[in-house]
């Protein structure tokens, strides 16, 4: 048999141009998103992809040139990811996330959110009652770094002062961004620790609740209950809501790991994980806003009624944004094909 006359060689030379063409299109597509291709090329792409896929199929069955087969495998894989992967522009992605993805994900974990809220307030109530009964408990709930001169030994005037001038005014921006990165880490942990059957997430919620409860108890003890409420709610409506949602996301994953139902355990975990991640993504945004409210809003607005008004309004807005039923096609279609 003379060389160069093999069927597989002819097969290759006949189709090589298509492969090369697909390769150049892919290189352009990968370097920049879909904008890089003209309309004609966009139409050619799937055709070339299918032609190459069919080449791969034939080559596997008839050719023994492993170089060609490996090349085609890598080429079709690249094309597959380019065609079935993500082509949505970042802008569209972000807008869809805020319009639909996030509120829908939050609605999906309503059950977990209720549980997380209950645990949080259970912790708060527990700590409140304990500290009211015996002030010494205060020291077990509040870490020293958070006390900042707020101890049962402080006078009413001192405590009142901390409500209206915490830190010095010039440190506001620094304080706000510190709070943001600190709280975000707490939220990320509440989410990430969830896979351990949700126990760490629940514990974290309980602990956070305790801190707030003990804190409020101290001020109530000194007759500053109403004032501390305003101090907390102006940013807490956003921040605590965010932390509770992060806890709920963790519980969602933990529950899926513990009770996977019909899926395999790993499958259930990844399904719940991607859903919960959408919640967490939004939580980071909420915490950013809360950091601003806490760093600036709380320092600049010192009127109790104004604080309550701002806090309750933001709470109301969040609730409407998350739980207002939506009834349009885009809402129902979103994510339906995602886990098929």
């Amino acid at each position, binding site marked *: 048999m003379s060389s160069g006359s093999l069927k597989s060689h002819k097969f290759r030379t006949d189709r090589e141009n298509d492969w090369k063409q697909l390769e150049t299109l892919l290189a352009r597509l990968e370097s920049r998103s879909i904008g890089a291709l003209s309309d004609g090329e966009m139409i050619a792409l799937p055709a070339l992809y299918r032609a190459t896929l069919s080449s791969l199929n034939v080559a596997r069955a008839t050719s*023994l040139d492993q170089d060609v087969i490996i090349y085609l495998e890598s080429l*079709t894989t690249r094309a597959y990811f380019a065609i079935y*992967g993500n082509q949505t522009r970042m802008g569209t992605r972000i807008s869809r996330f805020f319009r639909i993805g996030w509120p829908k994900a939050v609605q999906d974990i309503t059950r977990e959110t209720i549980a997380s809220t209950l645990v949080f307030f259970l912790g708060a109530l527990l700590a409140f009652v304990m500290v009211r009964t015996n002030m010494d408990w205060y020291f077990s709930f509040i870490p020293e770094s958070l006390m900042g001169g707020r101890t049962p030994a402080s006078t009413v005037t001192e405590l009142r002062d901390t409500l209206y001038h915490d830190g010095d005014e010039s440190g506001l921006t620094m304080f706000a961004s510190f709070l943001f990165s600190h709280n975000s880490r707490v939220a990320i942990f509440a989410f990430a620790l969830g896979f351990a059957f949700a126990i760490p997430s629940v514990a974290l919620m309980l602990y956070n609740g305790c801190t707030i409860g003990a804190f409020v108890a101290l001020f109530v003890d000194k007759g500053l209950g109403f004032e501390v409420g305003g101090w907390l709610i102006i940013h807490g409506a956003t921040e605590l809501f965010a932390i509770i949602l992060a806890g709920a996301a963790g519980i969602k994953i933990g529950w899926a790991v513990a009770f996977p139902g019909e899926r395999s355990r790993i499958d259930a975990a990844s399904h719940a994980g*991607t859903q919960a991640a959408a919640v967490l993504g939004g939580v980071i945004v909420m915490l950013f806003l809360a950091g601003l409210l806490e760093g600036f809003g709380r320092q600049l607005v010192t009127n109790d009624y104004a604080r309550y008004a701002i806090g309750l309004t933001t709470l109301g807005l969040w609730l409407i944004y998350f739980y207002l039923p939506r009834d349009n096609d885009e809402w129902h279609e979103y994510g339906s094909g995602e886990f098929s």
Partner: protein
Amino acid sequence: MKAYNPDKNVRTLVTPEGIDLRLRIADGGSRVGAFTIDLTIMIATLIAITYVMGFATISMDDGGSEVAQAIWLLFAFFLRNFYFMVFEMGPKAATPGKRLMKIRVANRRGGHLTANAIFARNALRELEFFLPLSFVLSVMFLPNQGVDGWLTLLGLIWSFIFLLFPLFNKDRLRAGDLIAGTWVVKSPKLRLSKDLSGAPKPTDGHVRYVFTPSQIDAYGVKELHVLENVLRKNDPTTITEVTSRIMQKIKWPKSDKDPDKTKSTDAASLEFLNAYYAALRGSLETKLLFGVRRKDKFDKR
């Protein structure tokens, strides 16, 4: 890497068109390499921004330096948490480190790699790597901050469990991959090299090497692929060695060993091997068309 050998790193991914793409799982080494590169880039960026902010602070009043500090803190946070996410959401689904190691993130079930999945796999990174790291660093640099030795030890054990996690499952999944339903696969960009069966024919028109069917039947697909690799590497000593081995095996007449005295033995060996490769491939491919895949030389079909 052999295309048809049952490779333990090959995974099935069937496209909607019904063809298995045979994805290859990225090995531990390239994962570690990619992460090291990314970490280096992040640290370098952080150092650079620290310098910039440092200079900015010197020339500014208190309020300005305040803002600079806040920006630094925010920047550090975003860098740590969003570096991976932003790159993995891009069209290549890989960070610079992953690109260099020629690997990418993909959905385990095939189809879209969603932003949620990328978010989940990277949120877990905080737990797997940055939390234990912050423990260790705080003990090293702030020994009097109340983080005691036991807690550090616990942190180290914790981080080792997560670091070694990918080594204890066959898909090399990180805890983050597990939760997000992703995996990391190889995505090499290969060039198509020339077909060896199309090597130049003898110029004088007559076919120099003619093999009898029994000579061709000495080997199977496995040996063909080894021969292909030898020819592509084109290392003179190996070529000569392989040539003499094959000649021995197929009982190639001694007198014909070097038919063209003007050529060096190396070139002659190469020509012989090319011819034998083409003949063997032709014969095996013909069998393949009839549904017989002769696995190796021990396969008597």
